[in-house]
């Protein structure tokens, strides 16, 4: 127990070091092109390869190509929410202003990618399963994730005092994180119409490598793209809050402004 406070304190200083808004803006500006351009290139390469050059599946035919959009979208829907939950811990424990701003910006991006996952899944389900939608455990838990995102977006903007919104939304994000293992393991715990995972940590992927490579490329591209959009939005939010604090306190002009941004 004696080691814990120092660990918590050390973690705190680490986060504070990289979350100082000024340092974040400098780092973000350097990082941005390294995220944006690889994201565009990898996504285009992955989708081009997947949609035009990879082989069709032996039983699903060309419909299998929806996978190259659906799988990255599904992975990022969960990963984005995990990011939201991480921001919630940083916000609740270390009262990190940057974590709050990031949470505001991750929400809409995550909701969009979850909507893309649900839409492509539905388009894939109709020709293969014979139905647009069923209430099985996997589909339902992802729909719940979508509503959690919508709730987070609404809650974090619902208060006149933003601090109260940040706190309420952080609690929602943490509570909603319970859905993540349910999504992941739904296809193993219960029988579902959705098939189990093809790519697992333990076994060989049950997917031909000629399909796995374009899928890996497009997943990497989508992930970098998600990070690039969130970073750009968070930078814009930090700058916006700096400008707002400058405008609201005209006496504290000049050098001191960078210190009390956000």
């Amino acid at each position, binding site marked *: 127990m004696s080691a814990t406070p120092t660990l918590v304190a050390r973690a705190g200083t680490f986060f504070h070091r990289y979350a100082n808004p000024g340092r974040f803006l400098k780092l973000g500006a350097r990082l941005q092109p390294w995220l944006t351009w690889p994201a565009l290139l990898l996504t285009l390469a992955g989708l081009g390869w997947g949609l035009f050059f990879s082989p069709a*599946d*032996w*039983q699903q035919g060309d419909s299998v190509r929806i996978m190259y959009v659906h799988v990255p979208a599904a992975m990022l829907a969960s990963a984005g929410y995990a990011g939201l939950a991480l921001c919630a811990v940083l916000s*609740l424990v270390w009262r990190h202003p940057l974590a709050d701003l990031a949470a505001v910006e991750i929400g809409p991006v995550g909701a969009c990618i979850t909507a893309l996952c649900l839409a492509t899944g539905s388009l894939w389900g109709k*020709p293969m399963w*014979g139905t647009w939608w069923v209430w099985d455990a996997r589909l339902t838990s992802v729909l719940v994730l979508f509503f959690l995102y919508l709730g987070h977006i609404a809650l974090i903007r619902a208060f006149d005092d933003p601090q109260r919104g940040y706190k309420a939304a952080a609690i929602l994000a943490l509570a909603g994180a*319970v859905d993540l293992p349910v999504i992941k393991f739904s296809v193993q715990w219960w029988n579902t119409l959705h098939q189990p995972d093809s790519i697992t940590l333990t076994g060989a992927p049950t*997917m031909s490598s000629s*399909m796995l490579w374009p899928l890996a490329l497009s997943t990497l591209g989508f992930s970098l793209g998600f990070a690039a959009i969130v970073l750009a939005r968070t930078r814009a939010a930090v700058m916006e809050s700096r400008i707002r604090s400058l405008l609201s306190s005209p006496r504290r002009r000049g050098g001191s402004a960078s210190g009390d941004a956000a």
Partner: protein
Amino acid sequence: MTRKTRRLWLVIACVACLGAAAALMLKAFSSDIVFFVTPSQVLASAPPADRTVRLGGMVVAGSVKREKQGETPIARFDVTDGQAAVTVRYEGILPDLFREGQSVVAVGTMQKDGFVASEVLAKHDETYMPKEVAEALKKSGKWDPRFGAPPSAASWNSMTVQDAKKDLAPSAAPATPAPASAPAGN
């Protein structure tokens, strides 16, 4: 203990409690969360004839009988989970993925003479491979899709379309009926 440490433990405790509550709840409702029941469950305790159930399992090879009543196609097939089999009767057009050896979910009611489906959903598995690789596996005798899952993924997932074509090529000319008979299971 600083305030930050206290808050961290509080957050951990809350998340742990919430996770436990959710786990218990899902465990309790586990029988309602499953999407389908298996043939052996249906045979062990038959649901009342007016209750719609979803019956899931594999279509037994050689059990599919198709006929036509006027314009409506009628299909009869056995669905099995390996232990028991139930005969399903379905009026209408089956999904494209329907074939012998495929997993399906039939939505309907259990009658005295078998299961009467109002809807049949095809459930595809988690294996993805090009057509040529599937043909090569079938030809080498490693896999017959009518009898279930393909062999372990490591034995085929690095096989390229070119490799598969090479395997298929020598006997392609005499074995012309082979590609024609492949979709016959459909």
